[in-house]
């Protein structure tokens, strides 16, 4: 589904990714793990075309999307839940969703996402600025779904979610996977990440350092300690 080959990225003069490679099988949940500052967020931003293109290639569903402008990447079917939510605070919840729905294929409607996140329903016409942290996080996921993606990139989606909502999110992601969506999950909650994931990739200082299935990861205690300190 997604092939990332030798990707580099930098902020000004600070090189952050040094030739990262990733391979995502379709219809699976893939966890990308690493310590703070490892470059996880940078990887996702790079895939979305939100950072200037440097070296490397990105292939998505047979297309080479390297260097495409972001809107085109989004329209090609990649949904993005950014770190820190980034909902449009000046817009209402409904506007956030309909806007994203403009490029969707229509199989995700406001009603359908409301079924997944009923907590948002009473707040539909409130400006996103006044939502609680957790509500904004749900909105951010819901917004990405409205674009009807084939591949969903999630950057720490459980941050700020209550235990109960985290469980809801987990169920949603599993259901999406079962419907055939491919998911790339960056998550600090290693427990959640490994419980959900089919495949796991570890990265450290902008480089890929371990990859395997979830089962293999569960065995690899040494790797976990070394790269995650857990």
């Amino acid at each position: 589904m997604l092939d990332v080959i030798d990707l580099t990225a930098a902020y000004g003069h600070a090189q952050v990714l040094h030739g990262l490679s990733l391979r995502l099988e379709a219809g699976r949940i893939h966890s990308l793990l690493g310590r703070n500052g490892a470059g996880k967020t940078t990887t996702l931003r790079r895939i979305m075309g939100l950072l200037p293109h440097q070296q490397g290639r990105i292939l998505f569903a047979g297309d080479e999307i390297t260097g495409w402008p972001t809107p085109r990447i989004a329209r090609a079917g990649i949904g993005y839940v950014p770190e820190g939510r980034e909902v449009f605070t000046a817009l209402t919840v409904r506007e956030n969703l309909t806007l994203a729905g403009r490029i969707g294929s229509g199989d995700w409607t406001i009603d359908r996402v409301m079924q997944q996140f009923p907590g948002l329903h009473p707040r539909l016409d409130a400006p996103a600025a006044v939502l609680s942290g957790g509500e904004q996080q749900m909105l951010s996921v819901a917004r990405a779904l409205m674009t009807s993606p084939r591949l969903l990139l999630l950057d720490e989606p459980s941050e700020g979610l209550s235990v109960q909502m985290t469980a809801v999110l987990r169920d949603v992601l599993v259901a999406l996977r079962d419907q055939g969506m491919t998911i790339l999950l960056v998550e600090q909650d290693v427990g959640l990440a490994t419980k959900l994931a089919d495949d796991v990739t570890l990265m450290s200082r902008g480089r890929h350092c371990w990859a395997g299935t979830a089962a293999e990861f569960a065995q690899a205690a040494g790797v976990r300690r070394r790269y995650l300190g857990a």
Partner: protein
Amino acid sequence: MTAFWTLQVLNALQHAALLFLIAAGLSVSFGLMGFVNLAHGALYMLGAFIGISVAAQTGFWVALIAAPLAVSAIGALLYLCLLGRVARLGPMPQVLVSFGLVFIATELVRIVWGDIPLVLDPSAALAGRVDLAGATYPVYRLFVICIGAAMAAALWLGVNRTNLGAALRASVENPGMARAIGIRTERMFLLVFTLGAGLAGLGGVVAAPITAANPGMAVSALIPALIVTVIGGMGNIAGAALGALIVAGIEVFGAVLFPAASAVLIYAALAVALIWRPEGLLVAKGAR
């Protein structure tokens, strides 16, 4: 006496219509795109002068269409070559570049059209006067009221009945994320900027039969337009219309009832409005 007040109410409406045409484009680029476009007054001025030149060749009606189109084209060109790049740099560079454009446009107008004020004669069909509730009122001024009202309605529908307004606000707040949900921000900004320029051009050509076009108008049109935008609330068509009505009302009835204070009245109103509602009377939906 009623004829007198009818006349003044019509004057206020007519003044509001002109203010609305200038302010609407400013409000959209300001409130929805976050672009501090001080060159808006210059586009307004170009609308007037181009309209006058076109009308001299082909008559009023052609000018009424051609001038806004020409100014739109100028706006689009400016955006593509210059302002699009500046838009990303933040408000201070925007102020500076658009101020620079005011200087340049003013001098170009002086070079091309000279320093002597020019007027546009409306079509003969609009030249007469009609009797309304005892008052005799110039047809052209009624025409201005109608154009203002029609544009207000069209814009309101355009911004509120499509997702355009929301998409713009989203793109301004967080361009990266807006692009990540598939909004083609650049194309949309270009469209909106062009539209705003066209509105300014329309305002200019519509105003030209009433107030003489002169190179000073790039600057003098700016302040009332800014006041309308701020009092009405940014990025909000209904707000721009309301602001235009309020400002026009204050100017016209201030001139009638408190002539001695009429120079400061509008600023006093602005100060009061800001103190009462520091973010404009009608704030763009959703913004805190």
